[in-house]
Structure formats: structure tokens, C-alpha cells
């Protein structure tokens, strides 16, 4: 669907995007992850035809930039970061303007599309309000309706959930997942749980370079071999419990965590080579009179990978 080859962008001497090569398959939800200033927005802006690349090639379907930029633009719906809109317009007028610019000139078709979009993005109550009076979440929804106006095959969303409250984030994510069943979506974020929850594939970029590109599942499995387990016990003396666990298996690396409540002891247990040691721990503790309050594999694997790949010294 989208092929990017050796894409590079310099701002004067600063290299924002450095020889990025990527391909996005049809129907895929691709998450572009990276710390702030990694080059996510610049990459997306080049993909949408807003910035001209310093070098490199972008093609969408059989169309190539820059000669087919106009056609490519009509295949793509784009939601820029923080949805910059015309503040003095009413939502309805704005949508009409967008529809006409995108070639949806027939009034009946426009009305139908507005109805569908207003259901999908939840705009029904705000159609006749000035954009300047809308809250950030509502503006984001108007931006999303703008992006989806002509039902494009590709949606590109730049940090669609930044600055929203948890309810709004959940709503936007639902919308993305719903649309993603039929469309190709590329979105950038620096919230890891979001990428994990919505994406089929994750690309991590740092300092303009791609540092990881894999499906969400195999990225979590593959990149970091160690697995982390969190154990909380009720009853034992902390030092005694740590000695007891260390004696169980010399390979385990055990770190005591700050106790949440009196009488509770928590550990983070790191076991090498992705071995699941939870059965062993359970069987061992069963022999004592301690109570297991929590025994869980840490779900933050992605966060650790992200930190490892994008740390300053990496």
C-alpha cells in the first residue's frame, strides 16, 4: 500500500528523518512510536505531501511522489497533531468546505456523509457551534471527521489522543479500531499502551532512524529475553522471604519493592531466557504458611523495550 524508501529530511543541518525505509500493507494498523522529537511528525508530514523530502522515495499504491502528489493526497485522510482548524467557522460550514475541497460537491451526498460521520465521530450536538468554542477532544473529533470525509483508503493520524482525557482517549481508540477493520491506518504516539492496544505492527524510531519494526506480539517476545514477574506476599519478614526465594533458584534476580501496606512484601523477579518461573514459585511458597496476594507476569514488556531502544546513550 505505502512504500517508503530511504526517506531523509534535513532542516538546515539538523537531520530529522534519517534514511527511513518502511512498507505498510493494506488493512494494517501501524503504530509509529518514538520519544518526542524523534521525527515521527516530520515523517508523517512527508508522507502526506506537506513537506518535501530532502531525498528518498514515497509511493502509495502505484502512484509516486512528487509527480502524483495530488492523487496521493486524495487517497489519504490526515489528522495533524492537535487538529489545527479554522477557529472562526462553524463545524457544519467547516465540514462543507472540506467536502467541497475534497471533491464531494453533490449536496445530497454531502448530507449523507455528514450524517454518517456525525454518528461515527459523535458530532451531532456540535454541528452549529463555532470551532473556537469547542474543547480539545471535540476539536479532535472534528479533525477526525475532516480526515475521513471522503472515506479514504489510508488514514494518517498524528498523535490522535494527545491532550485528551481518559474517556476521550478510549473513544478515539475505539473509533480507530473500528475504522481499522477496513482501512490502512498509520498513527504516531508516544503512549506505549495505546500502540500495544491498537496496532498490528509497531515501528519505533529514535533520532530519525528506525530502531525496531515488527508485529506487536513478536516485538514484545523477541526483543527482550528476560521476563519480569511481580510477587506480593502476606506474612513473611522481607529479608527472610528474599533469602528463601534466592535459595530456590540461583539464576533469578530478585529486587525488593517498596511495601504498599504493612504486612505485605513485594518483589520484582527477573528470570532469564523468557522462562516462566511462576509454577515453581507457587509450589515453593505452598510449602510455607505465607499467602500469595499477587503473582503476575509484568505487562510492561513493551515499555522496557522502548526504553532500551530509545535511551539517550543507546
Amino acid at each position: 500500500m505505502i512504500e517508503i524508501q530511504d526517506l531523509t529530511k534535513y532542516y538546515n543541518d539538523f537531520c530529522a528523518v534519517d534514511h527511513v525505509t518502511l512498507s505498510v500493507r493494506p488493512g494494517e494498523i501501524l503504530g509509529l512510536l518514538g520519544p518526542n522529537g524523534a521525527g515521527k511528525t516530520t515523517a508523517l508530514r512527508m508522507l502526506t505531501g506537506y513537506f518535501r523530502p530532502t531525498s528518498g522515495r514515497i509511493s502509495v499504491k502505484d502512484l509516486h511522489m512528487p509527480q502524483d502528489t495530488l492523487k496521493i493526497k486524495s487517497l489519504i485522510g490526515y489528522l495533524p497533531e492537535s487538529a489545527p482548524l479554522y477557529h472562526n467557522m462553524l463545524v457544519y460550514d467547516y465540514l462543507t468546505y472540506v467536502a467541497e475541497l475534497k471533491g464531494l460537491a453533490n449536496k445530497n451526498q454531502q448530507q449523507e456523509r455528514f450524517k454518517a460521520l456525525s454518528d461515527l465521530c459523535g458530532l451531532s450536538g456540535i454541528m452549529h457551534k463555532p470551532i473556537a468554542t469547542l474543547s480539545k477532544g471535540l476539536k479532535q473529533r472534528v479533525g477526525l471527521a475532516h480526515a475521513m470525509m471522503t472515506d479514504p483508503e489510508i488514514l494518517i493520524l498524528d498523535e490522535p489522543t494527545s491532550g485528551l482525557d481518559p474517556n476521550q482517549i478510549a473513544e478515539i481508540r475505539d473509533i480507530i479500531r473500528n475504522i481499522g477493520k477496513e482501512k490502512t491506518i498509520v498513527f504516531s504516539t508516544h503512549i506505549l499502551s495505546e500502540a500495544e492496544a491498537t496496532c498490528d505492527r509497531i515501528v519505533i524510531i529514535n533520532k530519525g532512524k528506525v530502531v525496531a519494526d515488527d508485529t506487536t506480539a513478536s516485538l514484545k517476545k523477541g526483543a527482550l529475553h528476560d521476563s519480569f514477574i511481580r510477587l506480593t506476599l502476606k506474612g513473611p519478614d522481607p529479608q527472610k522471604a528474599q533469602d528463601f526465594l534466592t535459595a530456590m533458584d540461583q539464576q533469578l534476580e530478585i529486587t525488593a519493592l517498596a511495601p504498599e501496606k504493612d504486612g505485605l512484601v513485594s518483589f520484582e523477579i527477573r528470570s532469564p531466557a523468557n522462562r516462566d518461573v511462576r509454577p515453581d514459585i507457587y509450589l515453593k511458597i505452598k510449602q510455607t504458611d505465607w499467602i500469595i496476594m499477587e503473582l503476575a507476569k509484568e505487562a510492561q514488556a513493551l515499555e522496557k523495550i522502548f526504553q532500551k531502544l530509545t535511551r539517550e546513550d543507546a
Partner: protein
Amino acid sequence: MSQIKTIAIKEFKDYFISPIAYIVIALFLIVTGWFFFSTFFIYSRADLRDFFALLPIVFSFFIPAITMRLFAEERNVGSYETLLTMPVSFFHIALGKFFAATAFAGAMLIPTLSYPLFISFIGDLDLGPVAGGYLGAIFLAGAYCAMGLFASALTRNQIIAFIIGCALCFTLTILNRMLFFMPPKIVTFIEYIGASSHFTNFSKGILDTRDILYFISLIVIFLFSTHLVMQEKN
């Protein structure tokens, strides 16, 4: 083509949604009305010659005020990104905005039609120069709008856009009065570059293709420069 129309209509409406239109039109009427009628009765001549003589200098301050926001504001708010990622080209955007600004300048002139109406009651008004003058005013406004648009494309700061626009328009306006400073060899050339002499021909009721061509080339040059600046800035 329909994109140009859509952008032009939207930009034109924008003037009237905000208070800009009403303030600019009111101020324009006050300024031109005051200067025109303060000397009108002294000469006891039933024509609009003094009004048209005023226009280039008044336009060189009013037109940049109309055009300064066209690109600068979009860049500053960020809506420029939304606009450019829709299926429109630089050419569509520049032309759409240019037509909107010129149409607004035309709208600004409509209330001044009451001057010739009033004069025709008190004297014998020759309609030829009046019609020519208004046609010339549209050409002049178009040329100044193209220059203002170019100034607006240069920066994201509206005040800078206004000042650059004023400087460009003002230079073309007063060039004809600076002729005595110029070496004799280039006087005819400089006189041709200046906007006033071409506009004066119109307001005398003379329709000369050279004058029409002058204004059209000015518009084309500055719209093309705007196009280049937009391309360069990305």
C-alpha cells in the same frame, strides 16, 4: 477549478464573519470621503478626478491590511498544514486567496459609488472617466492584492506581512513622483514601472491595452512569486 472557487468563497466569507470587513470598509469610506470632499467644492468641478488620484496611495495602506492574514494567519494557527494535505495544489490556494482579496477590495469600492451618484445630482457628470476609473481601480486593487499576498506568504507574522506589503505597494505608487531623482536615461522605464501613471490613464477614461497588460503582468509576476515562496517554504 472548483477548488479555486471553494477557497475564494471561503476566504471572502471570512472577511465578513469577523469584524475586519466592517472596520476596513468604514475606515476606507471615512478616509477617501474626507480627503475627496474637503477640496471638492473649492474647484466646483463635477468629476471624480481627485477621488481617483487618492486611490493608489489609500490602497497601498488598505490592501496590505486585507491581505496580511491570508497566509500568515494560516501558518501561525497551523491550518496551513490541514489545507495543504487536502487534494489542492499551491496554484489553487494562491489563486483562490487572490480572488477573495480582490473581490473584497471590489466590495470596499461599492459604497463609494454613492459619490458619483451624489455628484450627478449637483452637476453634469461625465460617466466615461468614472466607469474607466472604477475598472482601473479593480485592476489596481488586483495588482496590490497580488503583492500583499506575496508579502503574506513570506512570513507567519501578520504585522511583518502588512509592513512588507505596504512597502511594496507604496513604492510602486510614489515611483512616478520620484522621477526627478532618476538619471534621464531610465526615466521612461521607471515611469512605466510605477503604477500611478497607468491608473491615471484609466481614470481619464482611456482604455489602453498597455495599461491593462501592465496590471495583468504585475498580478502574474507576484502570484508566481507567491507560488515559488510557498514551494520554497516546504
